């Protein structure tokens, strides 16, 4: 098990690196890696070997053997998805999801800003493997730098030799639910970026009624390397249940917060060390994003970064978000702020989500401000029961998970606030990031 | 020849057209009122919402049935030159083209509302809803059609019926607007304004319009069907028979 990514890299060899970094190999300190540098670092974009009778689809087998799962949070097996789309009727189309609506996540944006050709390679390879002639790369409208650099990278590639599928850049509106697969496809079809609940499935009919493969940008970056170095190389890092490396966004009271590449199963302690250590004691850590779960600070010493290691703590890695909350912050104020934001992010299509999240946020606000009502905690429990699993997408479920784990881990602070009202840190506590503009898709 | 036809009195078709038209108007009014009750989600233990919804649908289908009868009998009635096309394409006929055309327009709108409702599953909900609002447009057009083409405007029972339906619809619209679009006062004002303007306009127009003199001629009844106004009393009674179809102001000829 090798260590974590440091910022310096060893001299480039012809063979792939045995440890980390992998994706972040050669990441430039400023600007994006040019096409030239990308080819020097990783080699040319592999075309399928003519000896391989399976053709471009051989890549799918390799991805299956590598055990690559989606990096957008759902961890769906990539090969299964590709086969479903490849087997559907009609000309497939690839959608690269780099919208990254999760406020605490920066990895996809970072990939596009610094290593766009990895993602573009992956998109081209995936398209070829499933027989698609077009890939649409979706970036959030607020990610100006990523948009600009990706556009430049795409034009750099126009020099590349033939057969490369057409790659088109699409600007998606800001919003938490915009990155949901069906919402994104809906946007690409010219409609509001809201999750759909009517059949058929996207792998059969998605963008322009074609079989559609929607993938997180990072997942495709891994595809670019698996195609070059093979599944066995990929599995050299990580654990049996979650092979390979992944990007995590580390934030909070850390010396060097930011995007890091880890292997699955690495300890949180080693990640923190690589990031220069913490600058303040951590009250708790949030894993997975604003639809994830909290783990108490006392337990963090024994936490390792993989779904199976986090499961006993009631958490999962999700889209690679690791957010530490300092002892000096007010967890109640932070939870209330984020929950109200999550409520506003509802697409507004399903009654239980709209009303449920709004009611939950209101009750939490009441508790945070001090209340004599002893039934409020029961009220929240009742509301979470009414809200979860009753929407067209998993947004309400995620929000409920976030709130439930906050109430559990921060039980002491919540009862304290209920009895005594706001604390000194309430007003100033703003450690958990939220987008500046209140981008909501509800009005669409 | 026309005089002989007139002297023979209005045909059975004429009566059927008139009565089925009246029934259609009542049913259309009922459907609209029930539609508002439906969307307002009113219910009691003995009148659950699915019953109200079912009644609304039934009333509109019945209205459609009577509309069909109304159109059929008006075409079959040999008195006025109305062909089937005139029932579909508005304003192209030769008998009171404008007022008849309004009927065709109202029918077209009604048909659109009903057909889209039957095919709801295949439209988006939003598209269905917007089309359904055409119902609010079809009603006043149907009412105007009734006043304009009707031969009985001066007959008290039909006038009373029409006014009764108008009151019911105004009440329904008020109820609907009272709680609709809580955040869009502009829309509510527009809806109320429209309803108010229509009612006011109607009340101002009626006395000089269908309730006034020689409406048949002014509304576009073909000259060949009108008697000569310079003729004597007998022909003026024929005139009134021919143009009004012999309602309350006829005496011995026609009914």
């Amino acid at each position, binding site marked *: 098990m090798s260590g974590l990514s440091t910022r310096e890299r060893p001299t480039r060899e012809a063979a792939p690196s045995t440890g980390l970094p992998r994706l972040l190999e050669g990441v430039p300190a400023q600007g994006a890696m040019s096409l030239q540098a990308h080819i020097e670092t990783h080699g040319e974009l592999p075309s399928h070997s003519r000896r391989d009778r399976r053709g471009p689809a051989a890549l799918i087998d390799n991805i299956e053997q590598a055990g690559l799962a989606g990096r957008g949070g759902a961890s769906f097996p990539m090969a299964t998805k590709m086969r479903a789309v490849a087997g559907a009727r009609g000309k497939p189309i690839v959608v690269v999801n780099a919208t990254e609506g999760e406020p605490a996540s920066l990895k996809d944006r970072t990939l596009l800003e610094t290593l766009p050709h990895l993602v573009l390679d992956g998109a081209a390879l995936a398209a070829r493997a499933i027989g698609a002639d077009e890939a649409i790369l979706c970036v959030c409208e607020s990610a100006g730098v990523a948009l600009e650099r990706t556009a430049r990278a795409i034009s750099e590639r126009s020099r590349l030799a033939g057969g490369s599928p057409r790659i088109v850049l699409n600007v998606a509106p800001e919003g938490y639910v915009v990155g949901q697969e069906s919402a994104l496809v809906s946007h690409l079809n010219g409609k509001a970026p809201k999750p759909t609940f009517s059949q058929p499935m996207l792998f059969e009919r998605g963008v322009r009624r074609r079989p559609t493969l929607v993938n997180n940008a990072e997942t495709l970056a891994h595809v670019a390397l698996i195609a070059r170095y093979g599944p066995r190389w990929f599995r050299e890092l990580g654990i049996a249940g979650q092979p390979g490396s992944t990007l995590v966004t580390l934030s909070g009271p850390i010396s060097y917060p930011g995007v890091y590449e880890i292997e699955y199963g690495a300890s949180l302690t080693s990640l923190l060390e690589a990031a220069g250590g913490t600058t303040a004691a951590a009250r708790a850590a949030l894993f997975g994003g604003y639809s994830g779960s909290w783990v108490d600070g006392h337990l963090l010493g024994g936490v390792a970064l993989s779904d199976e290691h986090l499961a006993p703590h009631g958490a999962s890695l999700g889209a690679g978000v690791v957010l530490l909350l300092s002892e000096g912050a007010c967890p109640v104020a932070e939870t209330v702020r984020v929950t109200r934001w999550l409520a506003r992010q509802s697409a507004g299509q399903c009654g239980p989500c709209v009303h*449920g999240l709004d009611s939950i946020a209101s009750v939490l606000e009441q508790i945070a401000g001090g209340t004599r009502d002893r039934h409020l905690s029961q009220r929240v429990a009742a509301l979470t029961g009414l809200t979860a699993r*009753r929407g067209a997408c998993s947004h309400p479920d995620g929000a409920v998970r976030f709130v439930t784990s906050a109430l559990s881990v921060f039980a002491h602070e919540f009862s304290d606030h209920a009895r005594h009202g706001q604390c000194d840190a309430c007003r100033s506590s703003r450690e958990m990031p939220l987008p500046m503009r209140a981008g909501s898709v509800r009005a669409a | 020849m026309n005089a002989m036809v007139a002297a023979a009195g209005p045909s059975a078709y004429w009566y059927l057209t008139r009565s089925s038209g009246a029934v259609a108007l009542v049913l259309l009014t009922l459907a609209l009122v029930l539609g508002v009750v439906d969307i307002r989600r009113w219910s009691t233990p003995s009148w659950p919402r699915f019953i109200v919804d079912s009644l609304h649908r039934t009333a509109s289908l019945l209205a459609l049935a009577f509309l069909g009868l109304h159109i059929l009998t008006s075409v079959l009635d040999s008195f006025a030159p109305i062909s089937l096309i005139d029932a579909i394409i508005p304003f192209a006929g030769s008998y009171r083209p404008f007022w008849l055309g309004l009927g065709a327009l109202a029918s077209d709108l009604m048909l659109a509302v009903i057909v889209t409702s039957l095919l709801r*599953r295949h439209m988006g909900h939003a598209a269905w809803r917007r089309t359904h609002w055409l119902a609010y447009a079809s009603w006043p057009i149907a009412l105007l059609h009734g006043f304009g083409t009707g031969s009985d405007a001066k007959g008290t029972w039909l006038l009373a019926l029409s006014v009764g339906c108008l009151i019911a619809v105004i009440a329904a619209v008020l109820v609907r607007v009272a709680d609709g679009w809580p955040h869009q006062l502009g829309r509510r004002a527009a809806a109320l304004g429209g309803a108010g303007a229509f009612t006011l306009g109607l009340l101002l127009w009626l006395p000089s319009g269908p309730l006034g003199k020689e409406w048949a001629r002014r509304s576009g009844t073909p000259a060949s069907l009108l008697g000569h106004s310079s003729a004597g009393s007998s022909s003026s009674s024929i005139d009134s028979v021919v143009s009004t179809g012999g309602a309350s102001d006829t005496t011995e000829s026609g009914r």
Partner: protein
Amino acid sequence: MCAELLPELIALDEWGYPIIDERPIPPELTDLARRAAQACPTFALLIERDRPRG
């Protein structure tokens, strides 16, 4: 309306939205369940392999 037609399997939450009993529909209620699903103005109910899903 669905809760009126199928109170055995559908209850309403405090906002008037249906709470569905997720167990399989008993055979004698299948027709009513279908009717309840059709009655929904926004087609929010689906009968899925004999299991209604909200």
